[in-house]
């Protein structure tokens, strides 16, 4: 595997990378193929990562994290994704989107009771924002939470493309409309909803990041209380956006890890493969492909780590850098992986099964 080196990394980061790599080899590598082929949800891997503090490493150790900064967390997702992109996404959702949101915005009870269990992988948390009506246009969501007497709220509506949303989630952070649609992001509230019969789930079959339990959810008269509001009423949109800013860094890290693994595989393949009476590595075009891939990967690394440092150093424009990193990394990463498939030819397109 190509080494992870960068002037921004401390000794602590390097030690952490080693730990995550060791855990990934032990727990993820053996099931990575099964996750994809059999759409297998790796519940036990989440537990193992949680036990070792690498599921939500950004949290302090007493909350089940590893006391890492955003850069360290991004590194863990990168390393995990070298073994499985699905596992990278699950770590992002569980760690960044759900656990960190409850830790940052939740009330005392959520923070003390829920957060450590989520961070340790004892409970599974799901982030329910997107809807059939609205993905990119998240401020237009329609799922309603209506307040009735006695401090109770009733939630009704549909959520779409929810990672580990169906069979696996124990708790959800659900974004709901708590005012007129025209008020857009100013009338959205986040709630903690526990697994309950009022939630109907159906799986969605997807092209990639399989085994992550992508689901459509229907909330039928789900009753929650005032205590279940995350943050403040009508201030939920900010929670979603802050979580997604971190999520963007994480997705960029997933792409970086996948690209590194793809380059490693392509390099190994062309080193051992002969064509036109010579090793493939003698061919200029192959050399230039590998050089492009390497250049793109190091470009991705720089922009992703740079964006993470913008968070850690609390620069005002950190969110712009999160988007820059995500946009650039996925475009370059898609290109790197497409070239890797091309270099390995039909071996990448198919795998022998019998």
């Amino acid at each position, binding site marked *: 595997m190509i080494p992870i080196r960068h002037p921004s990394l401390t000794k602590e980061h390097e030690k952490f990378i080693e730990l995550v790599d060791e855990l990934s080899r032990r727990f993820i590598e053996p099931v990575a193929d099964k996750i994809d082929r059999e759409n297998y949800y790796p519940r036990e891997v989440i537990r193992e990562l949680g036990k070792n503090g690498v599921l939500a490493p950004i949290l302090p150790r007493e909350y089940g994290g590893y006391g890492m900064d955003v850069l360290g967390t991004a590194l863990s997702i990168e390393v995990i994704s070298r073994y499985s992109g699905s596992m990278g996404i699950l770590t992002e959702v569980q760690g960044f989107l759900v656990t960190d949101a409850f830790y940052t915005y939740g009330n005392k009870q959520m923070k003390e009771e829920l957060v450590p269990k989520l961070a340790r992988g004892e409970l599974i948390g799901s982030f329910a924002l997107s809807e059939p009506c609205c993905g990119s246009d998240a401020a237009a969501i329609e799922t309603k939470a209506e307040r009735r007497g006695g401090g109770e709220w009733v939630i009704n509506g549909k959520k779409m493309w929810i990672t580990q949303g169906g069979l696996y989630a124990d708790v959800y952070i659900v974004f709901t409309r708590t005012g007129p649609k025209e008020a857009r992001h100013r009338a959205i509230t986040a709630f903690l909803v526990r697994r309950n019969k009022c939630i109907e789930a159906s799986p969605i079959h997807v*092209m990639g990041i399989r085994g992550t339990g992508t689901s459509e959810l229907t909330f039928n008269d789900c009753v929650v209380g005032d205590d279940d509001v995350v943050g403040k009423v009508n201030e939920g949109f900010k929670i979603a956006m802050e979580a997604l800013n971190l999520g963007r860094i994480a997705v960029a890290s997933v792409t970086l890890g996948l690209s590194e693994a793809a380059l490693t595989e392509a390099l190994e393949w062309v080193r051992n493969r002969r064509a036109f009476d010579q090793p493939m590595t003698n061919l200029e075009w192959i050399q230039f492909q590998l050089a492009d891939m390497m250049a793109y990967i190091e470009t991705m690394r720089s922009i992703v780590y740079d964006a993470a440092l913008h968070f850690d150093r609390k620069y005002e424009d950190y969110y712009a850098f999160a988007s820059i990193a995500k946009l650039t990394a996925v475009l370059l990463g898609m290109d790197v992986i497409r070239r890797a498939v*091309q270099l390995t030819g039909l071996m990448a*397109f198919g795998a*022998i099964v019998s």
Partner: protein
Amino acid sequence: MRRSNCVEVSKLEMMGMRGGAGEAEVKFNDCVVGDDDVLGKVNEGFKIAMVTLDLARIGISGVAVGLSQGVLDEALEWAKTRTAFGKPLIDWEWIQFQLADMKTKLEIGRTVTYKAAWLYDNKDPLFVLYASIAKLYTAQMAVEIARDGVQILGGFGYSKESFSERAYRDAKVLEIAEGTNEAQKIVIHRILTRGLPEVEL
């Protein structure tokens, strides 16, 4: 060579073109055939493979054009009916430009594919060059159009309910099978520097 017990087959599981194509690794163990089973002449088989593949390249280009048309149709329909930020997707300039790019690439691909086929039908030796040009261009086109189509469809495009999800996976192999993109470049470069090969049409 007829189907026989001397032929050992292991199936391959593929990203796309699943089911129908039945790709497999095939092993021949002491398979016995006769003089009568020689196709063409002894030691002249490579030519058969190459000419057949020239024709097959037009077939691949046909697949590329068809898949791309399907993706564009689905993206256009989706763009007309889906709203975001208060108006139909199709009213957003970026979506309009994406669809325009997809249509442009598709029609260029269709034209070069039909030209290659026309050259074959008219026994024009330029057919060999155009078969490779069409294959190289349309395979890349199909991957790009499928990628753009999936992007317009968003989460729906990533789910197995959409045509574009399948087309995206199917399209990738067009850059690999029946001569990779790079193999087409070798052919095109050779014709550029050495002229057309002799083929019987």
